[in-house]
């Protein structure tokens, strides 16, 4: 049965929040960078580098003005400055963004209990029952926009799409930026699809588009007419999804869960916990890489323990100075949320392939999550560690992260940052 779904997507989110906070940035091309500046001590003044020289960060969000001048998300700050010399680089402030995210999701929750925070700046709302029809849904969307304006600020704008399912609502919201409101009733979905490119649809990436092109499929109309069994033999179950999507159908439901959300905000249950870190300088030193990896593993483990999860799979990745990279995963039977264990597995992967080339980034993620804590270990030393971890965690809860660090980490200092790919300050 058709639903009425509203998709709300903040425009140039991090940049808009900064322009809301600071009027001197409004109307200007700004780029939010990954790394946050350090914290000044009393009496100290630290000049923030706004010109990108010596900066090895990437643009996580470009303001609307910067986008018009060609600056794109994930561009290196160096490249962005070359394209747009007037670009103001501004270090991201993850705490601010996550509070605003919480704030707008709370507003959405006043209109329906079925809210899915899809990403830091995008949410889906199921208003099938609350609205009843598209006219009322449009009215709800306008009320939400008025509340966003009043409670988050007029410079934090959103594009809103309304449709019979998540896929169509998202495609609709993307058709008008910034500040758009696009309504696609069930009878309009084919028209909407036919006005867009294949890879405009969430779920069709450039590689799939290429494969479809090779089959002679260039448009959604052609995709609809392509025999389902041929699609399925080419793409398996994904072929079924493609066929349905081309007809504007999507059976995905809103996944609202408040239990394991980001600090009480409703999100879907996490599928993985991950952290990555771009080193301040490329390094050849195995020991330094090892230290960072252990620090990351501890953070991932702490977040899992906080949310009462343990993982059965570790993926570790490493990126070298020449941007080549390596990622590999290991799966095991007994779930764990001990940072040292995560580290050991990750280091097995990374240590094996790392022969001293300059390293730029390391990261790991823990997946195949389970709520069941691992069985009691038979080994005394492990048992000891397991009993000490909850105590360390309560310290971390009270005083923020960074209170306890393993002895070998003392020299490793993590800079706080907001990355466009891993919104990962929530340690």
């Amino acid at each position: 049965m058709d639903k009425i779904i509203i998709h709300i997507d903040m425009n140039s989110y991090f940049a808009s929040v900064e322009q809301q906070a600071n009027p001197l940035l409004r109307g200007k091309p700004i780029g939010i960078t990954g790394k946050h500046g350090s914290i000044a001590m009393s009496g100290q003044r630290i000049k923030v580098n706004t010109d990108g020289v010596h900066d090895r960060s990437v643009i996580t969000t470009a303001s609307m003005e910067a986008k018009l001048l060609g600056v794109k998300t994930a561009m290196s700050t160096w490249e962005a400055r070359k394209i747009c010399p007037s670009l103001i680089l501004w270090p991201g402030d993850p705490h601010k963004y996550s509070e605003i995210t919480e704030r707008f999701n709370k507003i959405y929750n006043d209109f329906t209990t079925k809210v899915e925070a899809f990403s830091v700046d995008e949410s889906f709302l199921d208003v099938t029952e609350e609205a009843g029809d598209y006219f009322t849904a449009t009215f709800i969307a306008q009320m939400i926009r008025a509340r966003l304006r009043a409670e988050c600020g007029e410079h934090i704008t959103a594009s809103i799409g309304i449709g019979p399912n998540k896929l169509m609502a998202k495609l609709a919201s993307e058709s008008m930026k910034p500040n758009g409101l696009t309504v696609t009733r069930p009878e309009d979905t084919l028209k909407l699809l036919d006005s867009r490119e294949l890879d405009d649809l969430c779920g069709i990436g450039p590689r799939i588009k290429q494969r479809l092109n090779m089959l002679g499929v260039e448009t959604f109309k052609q995709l609809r007419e392509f025999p389902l069994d041929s699609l399925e033999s080419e793409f398996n179950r994904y072929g079924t999804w493609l066929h349905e999507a081309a007809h504007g159908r999507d059976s995905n439901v809103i996944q609202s869960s408040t239990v394991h959300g980001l600090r009480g905000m409703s999100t879907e249950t996490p599928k993985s916990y991950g952290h990555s870190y771009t080193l301040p300088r490329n390094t050849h030193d195995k020991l330094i890489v090892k230290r960072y990896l252990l620090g990351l593993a501890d953070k991932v483990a702490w977040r899992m323990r906080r949310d009462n999860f343990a993982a059965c799979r570790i993926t570790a990745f490493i990126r070298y100075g020449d941007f080549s990279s390596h990622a590999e995963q290991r799966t095991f039977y007994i779930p764990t949320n001990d940072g040292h264990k995560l580290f050991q597995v990750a280091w097995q992967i990374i240590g094996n392939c790392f022969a001293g080339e300059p390293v730029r980034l390391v990261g790991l993620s823990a997946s195949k999550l389970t709520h069941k804590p691992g069985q009691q270990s038979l080994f005394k030393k492990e048992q000891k560690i397991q009993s000490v971890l909850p105590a360390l965690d309560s310290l971390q809860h009270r005083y923020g992260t960074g209170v306890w660090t393993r002895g070998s980490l003392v020299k490793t200092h993590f800079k706080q940052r907001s990355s466009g790919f891993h919104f990962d300050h929530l340690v």
Partner: protein
Amino acid sequence: MHELLNDPIDVLVSFKDNRVFPHTMRWNQKDYKIKDVNLVHSAREGSKRVFFFSVSDSNNYFKLKLDPEVLEWRLVELYTDG
């Protein structure tokens, strides 16, 4: 020019509807009249919550931090055009 700092400041405020409105701040023996409060947000610092006020006059952007436990204000960020 964008700077991060951490200077104790004096702030003249009013209270209305359980909210705090900063009006004037004194920093480095100079008074700055706050024209706009653009955004207020909070953040956890360990077990306590602190508040950040992003405010501006016509030439400067200031980020002020309020520690409600000790009622202390600090200037933590400054941006001046050009």
